[in-house]
């Protein structure tokens, strides 16, 4: 580590961990994060200099989840907050990022964490269907819209359903781990 000061970790709080489609099914990653961030903030006797937060399953409604959580928690809006993702390592790599950003006359205390709302994973449109719909919305006449209908390919009319699968291999972590175990 390059930080010239000792970096400390102090234990934080968490929600209960519950089964998907269980008691937190009505809370998305934003509203599930707020009670944790508020409980953490209530512990601090002084400024929190910045915040790092993350979620692996993305939400179409926001991109900087950390900022949305901070503002939803009605904490000091002058505190910088950013989102990070590294799959299951997300909030650990958030800790490493925070550690590198601390220093004398810089930041002294960071709140780091993450959330997953598997119950609220969004189903989206395929990228081609999204682009096609945008063009339909932008069309200025019925004639243009009808012409656009001809450009729509049948194989693009489908939903993008998030899966716990690696994109490049198309296989789940479980399938990969079966291979590891057998090797």
């Amino acid at each position: 580590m390059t930080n010239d000061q000792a970096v400390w970790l102090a234990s934080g709080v968490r929600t209960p961990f519950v089964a998907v489609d269980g008691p937190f099914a009505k809370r998305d990653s934003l509203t599930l994060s707020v009670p944790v961030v508020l409980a953490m903030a209530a512990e601090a006797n002084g400024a929190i200099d910045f915040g790092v937060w993350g979620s692996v399953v993305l939400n179409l409604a926001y991109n900087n989840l950390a900022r949305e959580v901070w503002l939803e928690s009605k904490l000091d809006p002058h505190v910088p907050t950013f989102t990070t993702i590294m799959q299951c390592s997300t909030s650990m790599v958030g800790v490493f990022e925070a550690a590198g950003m601390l220093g004398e006359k810089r930041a002294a205390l960071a709140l780091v964490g993450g959330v997953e709302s598997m119950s609220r994973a969004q189903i989206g449109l395929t990228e081609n269907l999204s682009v096609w719909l945008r063009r339909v919305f932008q069309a200025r006449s019925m004639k243009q819209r009808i012409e656009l209908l001809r450009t729509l390919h049948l194989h693009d009319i489908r939903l993008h359903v998030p899966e716990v699968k690696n994109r490049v291999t198309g296989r789940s972590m479980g399938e990969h781990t079966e291979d590891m175990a057998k090797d």
Partner: protein
Amino acid sequence: MIIAVDGVDKDHFPHRDTSLEKLAKLKPVFDRSSGRGTLTAGNSSPLTDGAAAIWVGTDEGMNRLPARLPRVRLVDFEMAAVDIFTEGLLMAPVSAIPRLLARHGLNYEDIALWEIHEAFSAQVLCHIKGLQDRDFVRRKAGIENTFGRFPRERMNPNGGSVALGHPFAATGARILSQAVKELAGLPQGSRAIVSICSDGGLGTVALLEH
């Protein structure tokens, strides 16, 4: 460490009515046909909802927190990646851990606490086997050291992600907070390794000291 949300104040996991006999009867989930499948619902981390946080600070920052909060020093960290087309998807920590230990002249027995994230129990066993295989460590991590026996009895003393649940992005803060609390209860100078494997062939490891 756990706060109540919507009247819920306890983890759903582990299932308190389970037993080794019940777990042994579960069928493989990811390989249902070869007869050699090993991963079941009982030895895989469950799909989980949850959130977790941790504090990171300097001496000055720690002075802003209540003295009762357990705290330990983040000594160093390491990240690694593997080629997921030719290597095990979740094996990156087996490269990161030896590099981190070698950088500090440490052996496995020098680590009093091991918190190894369990996406699957089989993956943890693969990690341990890899860590104990000198040739594997040499090839994958590029480290010549011999690190000695891996002390399994010091690993995940209060349960890992299979037992507790695994809300992906929250797991890092959960496992680090848990390690901080456990390590702070050990003698001064004790060290911990905290390791997480991630999809994409990624791995992150932290070295902590009380």
